[in-house]
């Protein structure tokens, strides 16, 4: 077995962190290690948390983690922030909001940039979830970028998906229409001490009624004031309930297959893109093609035919 994989299975924080870095950079060492640790995954409960900026995701995660720790469970947290499309850099600002969890060796927090991927996640997230799972974490929480409309990818990776809304944040219900509303396993109305909370809960209820009518399980709507630790105990119970529910029904296997499919597709996509764009002989070709497309001497479809033609030969 790969040396770093062994250390990850032992739970060594530096190795966990290092493997995450290698996986993010598509290092070959990582691929080999990932192969080694895959058989050891599947135990962690993966919770996805999404919601617009300012909805209090980080605070909520902090509170949930505290409760999990009280139960003796270990927690891995993946906090994802947007990478700037212009500079390729990112300000990863979620860790600072979870300072209360510092110095607890039962908590591992990793900040990641989306690195160009849409959908609110980063392409390495599947690997990171597996790494944290294999290292022995009982719970893995994935906090996505709070942009709203395109946040659906979380559903591919999480066992339980939480959608957070906040009263008075104007758009927060609007942005939840179409797609995002369907992914929630649990709704959370955070900052429930705000005056408009009843209206917000009512709006969520009506949306739930519309989307849930054919489904078996009625999606619960919980109110919390994360900053004051209110409602979080109840939320934890609901998360556990959901975990039991999916384990007892076929949902659990379905969910896992869904994730592995997404993961497999992502690995293949990355490899293909690497192969096409990073292999130098192809790279030169592409620059020429781009020049021609810009001058309208060629169209993108023909260019694709050319590239794929070469590869599939």
């Amino acid at each position, binding site marked *: 077995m790969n040396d770093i994989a062994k250390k990850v299975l032992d739970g060594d924080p530096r190795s966990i962190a290092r493997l995450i870095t290698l996986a993010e950079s598509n290092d070959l060492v990582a691929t080999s290690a990932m192969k080694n640790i895959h058989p050891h995954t599947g135990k962690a409960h993966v919770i996805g948390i999404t919601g617009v900026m*300012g909805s209090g995701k980080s605070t909520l995660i902090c509170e949930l983690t505290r409760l999990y720790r009280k139960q003796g469970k270990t927690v891995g947290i993946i906090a994802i922030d947007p990478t700037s499309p212009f500079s390729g850099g990112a*300000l990863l*600002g979620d860790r*600072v*909001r979870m*300072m*209360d969890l510092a110095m607890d060796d039962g908590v591992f927090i990793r900040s990641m940039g989306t690195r160009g991927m849409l959908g609110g996640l980063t392409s390495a997230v599947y690997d990171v979830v597996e790494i944290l799972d294999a290292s022995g974490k009982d719970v893995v929480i994935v906090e996505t970028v709070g942009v709203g409309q395109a946040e659906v990818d979380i559903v591919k990776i999480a066992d339980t998906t939480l959608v957070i809304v906040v009263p008075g944040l104007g758009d927060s219900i609007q942005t939840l229409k179409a797609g995002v509303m369907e992914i929630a396993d649990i709704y959370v109305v955070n900052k429930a001490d705000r005056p408009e909370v009843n209206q917000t809960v009512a709006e969520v209820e009506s949306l739930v009624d519309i989307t849930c009518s054919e489904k078996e399980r009625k999606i619960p709507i919980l109110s919390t004031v994360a900053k004051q630790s209110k409602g979080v105990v109840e939320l934890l119970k609901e998360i556990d309930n959901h975990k039991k529910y999916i384990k007892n029904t076929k949902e659990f296997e379905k969910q896992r297959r869904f994730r592995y499919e997404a993961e497999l597709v992502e690995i293949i996509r990355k490899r293909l893109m690497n192969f096409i764009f990073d292999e130098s002989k192809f790279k030169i070709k592409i620059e020429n093609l781009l020049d021609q497309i810009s001058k309208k001497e060629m169209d993108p479809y023909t260019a694709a035919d050319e590239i794929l033609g070469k590869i599939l030969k």
Partner: protein
Amino acid sequence: MFKEKYIDEIKKKKKDWEKNIYAKYLKNHPERKKEFTNLSNTKIKPLYSPDDISHLDYLKDIGFPAEFPFLRGVHATMYRGRFWTFRMFSGFGSAEETNKRYKYLLDHGETGLSVAFDYPTLYGHDTDHPLSRGEFGKCGVAISSLKDMEILFKDIPIDKVTTSMTINGPAAVVWGFYIANAENRGISKDVIGGTIQNDILKEYIAQKSWIFPPEPSMRLIVDTFEYGFKHVPKWNTISISGYHIREAGSTAVQELAFTVGDGVEYVKWAMKRGLDIDKFTPRLSFFFNAHNDFFEEIAKYRAARRIWAKELKKLGAKKSRSMFMRFHTQTAGCSLTAQQPEINIARVTLQGLAAVLGGTQSLHTNSMDEALALPSEKAARIALRTQQIIAEESGVTDTVDPLGGSYYIEWLTDKMEEETYKYWDRVEKLGGVLPAIEKGFYQREIANAAYKYQKDIDEKKRIFVGVNEYKMDEPIEIPILEMDEKGEERQINRLKKLRKNRNNQKYERTLKALRKAAEGDENLMPYILDCVHAYATLGETCQVLRDVFGEYEEPAIY
């Protein structure tokens, strides 16, 4: 302000001038920049003339000194009667060392004291607290108990000279030390004068030396207002500050808008408790920055006075004394360079002059070495002399508000007032000052302004002499302040002795009473004073309040 027909004629003649003389000259002699904007990104025209201020009514909008709206000054004679207070902010190491520096400055002509505390003190920790590690005395004097306060002011006539203390989170307790020390020296509370900064809103926004969350902090502050006007009538129980907001990177307009906005918020809180507006507002004071853009700073101070007067009138103040804004100014620390430090003297002179032309009541001028360390004796003395030269030699103090009526100054004053109200609208829409702080509105505005400023310097859109232009490779050789290495040990031993020798029963009793009162809603000052007199330390007293009020955690915004 001018006859309408005459203004029309001026406007016409100005257009002619712009076309025939200005534009012509511009053809062969381009200006240094395509566009001139000041530090608040206000576009500045080549020339200002009567038509730019013809909408102003002299009697209503400008007026006379010591009369509403106080634009031209708060006192009738201003510096003809008395100069501003030369108040040099200082403090370092142990109380003994700082006591010596105070005596030095007083000997050299400073007329008011100003205390800088070290970080542990600012956060309400004693010198021997684990978080105080490495920080003792580094950026101010360490004061952990009444004993230290006694040493700090030994042989200093605090019945005759006023003291300003830059302390916020634990302000009520440190004020307690000062009052108790005076009382022990036989000086009555009626007589002592000074200021505690005590402005928690700007801590959340900029300086970040808070302890407790907003609601209990505001409660403590209103407690001090109340205690102050009842028992310590000569004391300014708050110095509503813009200095730190500016230092954190804000523009001048933001400094003005956020600071005066904070002031209005404090007044509203005090009124909510039922305090009479005319009783407590006379002892509210302000604290502004004196930054580089000479005329913008002057316009800022004037606009501040006018806005404050208008707002207090709206809130129901009836007495003149309630409506006028008194302020202290400090020249901008963030404008000082580590490179070629002597040139900072020139910067400070211009900035100090702007504060004076803006009508400040008290002034601190920075020392040239402050981008490198705390001021040495010589550097502090030169900074003090700078003020004395402005006061005695420049002639600007011979008349009140000499720049009043300047077309540029009155236009800019008006513009800054307009921009302030625009900011206030935005804060209103967010739900008010505290919600805006929670949502990170101020912090984001400041971080964006700071980033833009740095980019302007990196791209040479703004010239910073010695830093991005007129650079020299010379090593920076300047005598740096040395502190007594044994100071920390001495302080810790003093603390140990104090804790052993005090009447520990009295100490426990007073802390218990404070805890109970903090859980209720009585005014906490008398309880704090009892703890202080029982020689409870700063850390011990603040810990009780921490236990009851909790600690603030900031919404990290950048």
